[in-house]
């Protein structure tokens, strides 16, 4: 299957990550699930027991193994899509709304990371940007009073702006000092965590009214909360809609606008961009700001979608999950949407899996392996015996490589 429209050379594999084939993504997901299944089986007590007498009664082991897998994935299904065991409509359909609720911030943060990838920047700092954005939003939502509607809008804008500023800081540092953004963003993550913990701990700052020693903020004011979408029996709120809006904006930005065009130019070839008159340093700052802004949508989701006070771990694992979402989604708008939904489903299914005694971290394993397979197109090809690309280096590429390495600097 030539889903690959890629050229006949391997040396562009690095760029291929960002523009991978949808078919290959699908196969990677399948492979990830298979590996997850293996983990489920080998951590299942019944199976391990049955292994001890494998030669005597092998069917026991096979049966136990199969049960482990089916139980696990069915639980995932029940928790994330449709609970066929529930006895009323609300309980039966809640799972899909939970998936959407979890998917919202993943999609938004994923768009931010994806934008970074397309500009050639590695924004590993999504969690710091979420925390910083949430910090700003919580200030507005708990310490300032504004009329209904306005309060929400202002808080949201503040969150997005704060996250964007945090991102722009990274871009600025990279442009000015050449500091590697991987290290800077990761360090800023820790700094942001410390900062927000500090703010949530001091009663003169953001700590909740009658709080004890643990750092926790007040719940956002009702006028600032994101409204629920399907009434009170479901927790799904407008954060998901914001994420969808984000997807549309992202698509327009990257594919239709001149700004996105220049972002992509810088991402592909900084030298050509510079020669074409693009101010590369400023582009880094704008791109990181834009990236942070998309992540800020996730911050809005976390800070204003909550009904109770916030704790410093409000970002959960969204920061790193966003990277996997961007990778699986090949950094495109629709791709990130679908990837976000998948990983949102994983999160939604966690309680159901916990109930049957399976540690939900297994979805983390599945997620990790999916992304590993996505990152290695030839590996997936080898496993499924797809036709390989022409195994060669076209002369032009070789000359280009030489030119980069050879003659006078």
């Amino acid at each position, binding site marked *: 299957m030539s889903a690959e429209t890629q050229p006949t050379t391997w040396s562009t594999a690095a760029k291929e990550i960002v523009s991978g084939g949808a078919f290959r993504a699908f196969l990677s997901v399948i492979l990830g699930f298979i590996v997850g299944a293996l983990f489920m089986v080998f951590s299942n007590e019944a199976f391990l027991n049955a292994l001890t007498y494998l030669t005597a009664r092998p069917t026991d082991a096979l049966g136990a193994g199969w049960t482990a897998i089916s139980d696990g994935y069915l639980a995932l299904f029940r928790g994330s899509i449709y609970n066929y065991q529930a006895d009323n409509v609300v309980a039966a359909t809640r799972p899909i709304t939970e998936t959407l609720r979890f998917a919202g911030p993943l999609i938004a943060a994923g768009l931010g990371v994806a934008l970074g990838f397309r500009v050639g920047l590695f924004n590993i700092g999504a969690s710091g940007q979420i925390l910083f954005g949430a910090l700003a939003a919580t200030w507005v939502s708990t310490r300032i009073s504004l009329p209904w509607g306005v309060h929400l809008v202002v808080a949201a804008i503040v969150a997005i702006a704060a996250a964007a500023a945090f991102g722009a800081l990274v871009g600025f540092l990279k442009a000015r000092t050449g500091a590697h953004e991987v290290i800077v963003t990761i360090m800023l993550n820790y700094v942001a965590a410390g900062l927000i913990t500090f703010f949530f701990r001091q009663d003169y700052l953001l700590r909740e009214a009658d709080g004890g020693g643990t750092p926790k903020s007040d719940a956002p004011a009702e006028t600032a909360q994101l409204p629920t979408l399907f009434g009170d029996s479901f927790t799904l709120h407008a954060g998901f809609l914001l994420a969808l809006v984000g997807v549309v904006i992202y698509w327009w930005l990257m594919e239709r606008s001149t700004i996105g065009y220049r972002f992509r130019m810088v991402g592909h070839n900084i030298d050509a961009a510079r020669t074409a008159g693009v101010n590369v340093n400023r582009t880094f700052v704008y791109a990181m700001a834009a990236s942070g802004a998309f992540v800020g949508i996730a911050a809005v989701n976390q800070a204003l979608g909550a009904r109770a006070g916030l704790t410093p771990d409000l970002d959960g694992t969204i920061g790193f999950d966003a990277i996997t979402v961007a990778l699986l989604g090949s950094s495109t708008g629709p791709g990130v949407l679908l990837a976000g939904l998948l990983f949102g489903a994983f999160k939604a299914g966690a309680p159901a899996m916990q109930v049957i005694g399976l540690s939900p971290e297994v979805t983390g394993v599945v997620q990790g392996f999916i992304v590993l397979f996505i990152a290695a197109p030839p590996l997936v090809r080898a496993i499924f015996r797809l036709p390989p690309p022409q195994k060669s280096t076209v002369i*032009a590429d070789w000359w280009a490589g030489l030119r980069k390495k050879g003659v006078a600097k």
Partner: protein
Amino acid sequence: MKLELRGITKRFGSLVANDHIDLVVEPGEIHSLLGENGAGKSTLMNVLYGLYIADEGDILLDNVVQKFKGPGDAMAAGIGMVHQHFMLIPVFTVAENVVLGNEPTGALGILDLDSARKRVKEISDRFGFDIDPDAMVEDLPVGAQQRVEIIKALARDAKVLVLDEPTAVLTPQETDELMGIMKGLAKAGTSIVFITHKLREVQAVADRITVIRLGAVVGDAKPTDSAEKLATMMVGRAVDLGVKKKPPVLGSTGLSVKGLTVVGDRNTKVVDDVSFEVRGGEVLAIAGVQGNGQSELAEALVGLMHATAGTIMLGDLDITGSSVREVIDAGVGYIPEDRQKDGLVADFTIAENLMLNKSFGPPWAKGVQIDFANRDRLADVLIDQFDVRTPGRETLAKQLSGGNQQKVVVARELGRDLNLFIASQPTRGVDVGSIEFIHERIIATRDAGKPVVIISTELDEVTGLADRIAVMYRGRIVGIVDATTSRETLGRMMAGATV
């Protein structure tokens, strides 16, 4: 040692780079492999050197078939290669570079740099190379670096020495010296394969010539054959080696550069107090050996490098210190030296590449959004006007040949209204057909009354296109002369002699 290549075939996917090539080099012979850019010469040599494995065919040394699994085997068999793009590690010393892969060691694998230094000195003295074994390669001038490459090959007792386009970075005098070295080595028994596309050199030094075109051997020739015959064999059709142009019709001063100075990485003035003027309707060519500041001069003119002193005036407009975008908006068209690195985005389509420096406003953009209708229409027009051979505007730039890629760059720059046109190495790595086309467009721009600046290391291109020639040496302009100046004088100027 006698070298024979028999039926060598090498394919890259559907591209046949070498097509059943036969070649015989007798001991002590200087054999020239002549062909234009992209003909497959370097591929053949990489097969000989073990970097590539041939799909079919044999390599024989002294009538014994060889099986090379890598450059190590080729070197052990006595084949030495002096690459066009030097294979030297800039941050290592000369001695380290020369012994790399063949290091003398003491106990525990400790490097014995003393004996490495001795070996370098010994070879250097024997041929009069004057190289310091402890010098860091990146600090050496280009001619010296090439000599290090040669020492590297000789240090391994090469019996067959392959030189791949060695004169690209040398002055005419240094080229003559290299020819002398080659003749000396040949007399001492070394077989030499000399790869080039320059007819003049081939006629000066080769004992026998093999001409390659499109991956296959076209035939053998003798150095006494005429340049026209050799060129025709190289290209496959009658070739007119001259560029036809009318005398210039001069307008007002377009570009005026005064006292321009640019300081480079190593605190040297890579452009040193340069002044010149170009009027509308004429071509000023900046000649000189690669590495004498021409590239930096071009970059300073368009705003890519920062000028430490001096002024650049475009008509009445002062563009000194302007940003690249301001320079582009002022109507300056620029063809960068390295089209793959600076001129094109390989993963963009032709259409996207044609608007690379035009995304800031109409007609290619409408406000913040790309004007797709206009873009597609204009792209088709330009592709047609500039003879870009491609299935369509959505083809990726990296799928085009070198010549067509360059035509895209030319189309982009000449496809708009210009006040100044600067082209740096406009036909490097480009096939002859495209060279002719590009030269025609350059002359057309000049005839339309625009000032044109060409920067080229190819003396033929310089003398063919220019109305006046400015020669650069070590960052300074040695002199500005008429295009009818003799090659000998130009050569002396390129080596620094003032007129």
